[in-house]
């Protein structure tokens, strides 16, 4: 270090304990680490039409894209109708598909915290659970409308998340993770155990809203809320708030020198996450029709982490796919649906007798109900060690092609960016 410009003048930060040890509460221990950042070509602030200004798909290209869009729309919207569908969706299955949409909302909720704001939450089951019990209480005990209940559940979700967020401002990331863990257990056992509010161990009934009693109608209701949440999430990343979060996650010092009130925007992220979680909770309550506190346990929190991380942090398409994937896997519907699809495709060739479930059970001795338990964590480990972009990164080329870009196999590739890992 003989050159003049290279060393920092005083590498002593007030946030650091004199002996250099970890001090919770002292947010800024300027530790530089390398975290992978998805090179999201669909970056917030860069509208699709501006990204690749020269490229316009040909007419044939548009037709091709239109066909794929139509196929996807049919896949999602026509599932319950079973029209031309190979999946033969029954009443029990449609409830699982609704659950997939609800989990997607929950996954997007955690993504706001973990992805955008860089704050870990191991107590997300509490966020969702508070929404669920609020909604059930309003509909069952107060005899008020479901629509009001969703709004209030979202509000309660926001309030409890903001309170927790206020605590996070005083702690560094890893210590805050412990608080969320304890908070989740506390909510599950204490808050959700208050019989007067939650019905105790017997649970609380939560009837479905008028006109949405059937599983099929409820599925569309969940899709509608998912669309709403996706819209809000999209607007967040394309507006002031999203840009502020992106800046403060990576470098709080730069963010504050841009005039961003770092603490206020962290609280904003908590509040928005709470709103999404409240909506998810409300939908979950009326989906199950009777809810009990013990269903909001630590494993649900871990499931949300699986969904967002494997789906791909900061990638809303990936998070939605990841959430649906885990919901279907948990409820054992995924493999069944794949089998039905195979059956549908292979039947004309007389190869219909084949079953993945039997193969798994026969060769590995892994019964269907345990596939999710084994596959989920392994996918998580694989994602964070090898493919940090998650599912979102894998589908990014298709997603970009669908929105009118050139097909590029390497789109969304993950590159390493040096980041001041300050919040952790």
């Amino acid at each position: 270090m003989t050159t003049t410009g290279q060393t920092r003048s005083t590498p002593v930060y007030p946030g650091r304990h004199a002996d250099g040890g970890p001090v919770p509460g002292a947010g800024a221990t300027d530790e530089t680490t390398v975290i992978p950042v998805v090179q999201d070509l669909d970056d917030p602030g860069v509208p699709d039409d501006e990204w690749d200004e020269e490229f316009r798909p040909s007419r044939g290209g548009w037709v091709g894209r239109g066909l794929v869009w139509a196929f996807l729309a049919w896949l999602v919207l026509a599932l319950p109708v079973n029209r031309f569908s190979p999946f033969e969706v029954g009443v029990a299955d449609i409830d699982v598909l609704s659950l997939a949409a609800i989990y997607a909302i929950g996954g997007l909720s955690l993504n706001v915290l973990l992805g955008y704001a860089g704050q870990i939450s191991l107590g997300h089951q509490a966020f969702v659970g508070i929404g669920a019990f609020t909604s059930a209480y309003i509909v069952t005990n107060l005899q008020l409308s479901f629509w009001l209940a969703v709004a209030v559940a979202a509000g309660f979700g926001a309030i409890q998340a903001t309170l927790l967020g206020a605590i996070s401002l005083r702690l560094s990331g890893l210590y805050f993770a412990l608080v969320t863990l304890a908070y989740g257990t506390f909510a599950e056992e204490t808050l959700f155990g208050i019989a007067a509010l939650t019905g105790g161990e017997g649970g609380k009934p939560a009837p479905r809203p008028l006109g949405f009693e059937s599983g099929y109608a409820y599925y569309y209701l969940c899709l509608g809320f998912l669309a709403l949440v996706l819209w809000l999430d999209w607007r967040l990343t394309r507006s002031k708030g999203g840009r502020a979060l992106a800046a403060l996650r990576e470098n709080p010092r730069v963010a504050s020198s841009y005039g961003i009130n770092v603490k206020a925007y962290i609280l904003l992220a908590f509040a928005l996450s709470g709103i999404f979680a409240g909506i998810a909770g409300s939908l979950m309550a009326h989906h199950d029709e009777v809810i009990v506190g013990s269903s909001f346990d630590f494993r649900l929190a871990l499931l949300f982490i699986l969904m967002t991380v494997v789906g791909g942090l900061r990638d809303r398409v990936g998070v939605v796919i990841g959430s649906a994937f885990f919901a279907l896997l948990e409820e054992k519907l995924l493999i069944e649906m794949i089998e039905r699809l195979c059956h549908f495709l292979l039947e004309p060739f007389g190869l219909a007798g084949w079953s993945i479930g039997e193969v798994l059970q026969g060769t590995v001795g892994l019964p269907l109900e345990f596939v999710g338990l084994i596959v989920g964590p392994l996918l998580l480990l694989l994602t964070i060690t090898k493919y940090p972009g998650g599912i979102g990164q894998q589908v990014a080329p298709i997603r970009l092609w669908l929105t009118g870009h050139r097909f590029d196999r390497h789109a969304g590739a993950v590159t390493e960016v040096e980041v001041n890992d300050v919040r952790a």
Partner: protein
Amino acid sequence: MSQLLTELGIAVVAGILQGSVYALVALGIVLVHRASGVFNFAQAEFGTVGLFGAYTAVVLWGWSYPAGILFGLGAALALGLLTERLVIHPLRNASRVTVLVGTAGVALAAVGIQFWRFNETPIMTMPKIHEGFFRIPLIGASVTVQQLITLGVLAVASVALALFFRSPSGLAIQAAQQEPTASELVGISVRRVSMLTWAIAALLGGLAGILSGPYTTFTAGFLTFGAGRALLPGFMAAVLAGMRSMPGAVLGGFAVGIVEQLGTLTILLSVPGARAMMLFAFLLGVLLLRPQGIFVGRAATA
């Protein structure tokens, strides 16, 4: 009033006994955190895996108890080394939140495998090393010999760790933790130190699981979110130790055990989940008021 005092006495005794399990978990957490700054969410699962190992050997295969314990410890050790190799080492440059998620992933994977392999008897019972129990006169607390054995093992483990950290290998670990680059230069392999740290942590976790398993029946994920939940209390004990002091981790374990047992007092009977509430309030209080820990001792000033 006297009833409250009696209950308090019982809570303190029960808290210390349960706290010795937390202390074993906390020792592993502190050890790993000092070595790599990682919050190891798989620490409690090392215990469950050890317990499942011992259960398999003793109950299913009919091995002798000591052999079963060794087998269980071996299983925990294997998981610890696998974690280091497959998760911690590849993520050495990742952000610490990512590593935390990685260790949680290890725990989840272990739980998943337990559910799958032991799904025929979901609720299992591990025999005790010694079936005896007695009552402490005056206080009236009931104590099992098994719990006393745990307390004894904790004492032995603490002394062994203290001695180990004065030996050349132990000093090498401390050097590598404080000055990784300089240690490489004087010939200490940081990689080997990391393996050694995780091995010791896994063994401590394994002991916690094998010794506390017989307290009650157990299921998959016993120490992480089952009946023998020790992950959060273990972390809290470690926080009380400032995430760095070994003796602090032991004292912290006792303290957390006692606080948790206060949740069982009759006056809190009407509060649902009083133990969880006590723990949450205690953690918040400690982190907001004394984030540097309470039982830190000389380690912090050194």
